[in-house]
């Protein structure tokens, strides 16, 4: 399901509107105006940021949260909910 699907013409189409690929092709990171930065010194790996992420784009790598910026829309729920205030939202482009 992870691959990009490229139909060239009507003959290649399935008979009905059936979706067989994943929206992972849609890199929603471009929506973002604020970029979350995790302060690793403050982070206690409670994974509350992972828990509340509406994008399901916080990966767990070596028991630590890693934000996938390809998909993060910058909603800042993670920063708001972090009990240690370990996530800072920085303006993109700065």
């Amino acid at each position, binding site marked *: *399901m992870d691959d990009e*699907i490229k*139909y060239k013409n009507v003959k290649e189409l*399935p008979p009905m*509107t*059936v*979706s*067989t*690929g*994943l*929206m*992972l*092709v*849609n*890199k*929603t990171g471009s*929506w973002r105006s604020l970029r979350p930065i995790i302060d690793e010194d403050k982070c206690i*790996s*409670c*994974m509350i940021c*992972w*828990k*509340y992420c*509406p*994008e*399901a*784009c916080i990966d*767990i790598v070596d*028991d*630590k949260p890693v934000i*996938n910026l*390809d*998909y993060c*829309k*910058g*909603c*800042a*729920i993670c*920063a*708001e*909910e972090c009990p240690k205030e370990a996530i800072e939202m920085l303006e993109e482009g700065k």
Partner: protein
Amino acid sequence: MRLTLPEQELMSSGHKGCQGCGGVMAMRYALKALGEDTIVVIPACCWTVLEGEFPYTSLRVPLLHTAFETAASASSGVRAALRVKGKDDVNVMAWAGDGGTFDIGMQALSGAVERNEDFIYVCYDNEGYMNTGIQRSSSTPYGAWTTTTPVDAFEKAHKKNMVDIMVSHDIPYAATASIAYPEDLIRKLNKAKSIEGAKFIHILAPCPSGWRCASNQTVKLARLAVETNVFPLYEVEHGKYTINRKPRKKPAKEYLSLQGRFRHISDEVAAEIQEQIDAGWEKLLKKEKDSME
């Protein structure tokens, strides 16, 4: 590190939900609870649009899009097909917004629950027609602004109590849940999964775009809705009410003041809302007490 939710992600990144969408969080949790053996039926709602665009989807489980008022009836058909094919271990989850549940889909929902179809009906409630640009629904709370209840004529009707309506159908299981309490939400969906017959889960899903609040406030607002008794967490099993959280009551103003949709309300209206909330809470306590006896 200890995860309090199942790790498996059946909802993928890349969906088109607005920043901070509560409805997206609700789906993520629901699928964590129900797992891969689940067929989802979605009528017209925000999820119709945000889910994806042909030929892509953001669900790793089968999904049937269907017409606005047909979540419950189309789900009935899916269940019937699974039964004739002998696939009894598959969950059927209807997933509708408040418009599709409280309003246009009410008849089909009533029919399916009366027939006690074996399915889980989830209403993710953002208290209005948010997908079409914030119009009032019969779930919009008293006092709220929407584009069809402008500030000079703000919403005057009271939000329907869907759980009570479901309980009146003798539904085996009905519950409220909140995206601020995902462990509770998942527990409830797991319970729903274990019960045969119709199940109704009412999830409050704050909508930053429609509630006129910052995108980072979604969880906070959902939590405040519980803490102020605006949206109490409870479940009803075969008519027996159990309140899951009896919070030390915060004033409703803490909840209302964070949302632009209530910005216009006077102190009098705010007081009225507080009275309604208190009365609703007392009623709920009484239902719990009465159903214990």
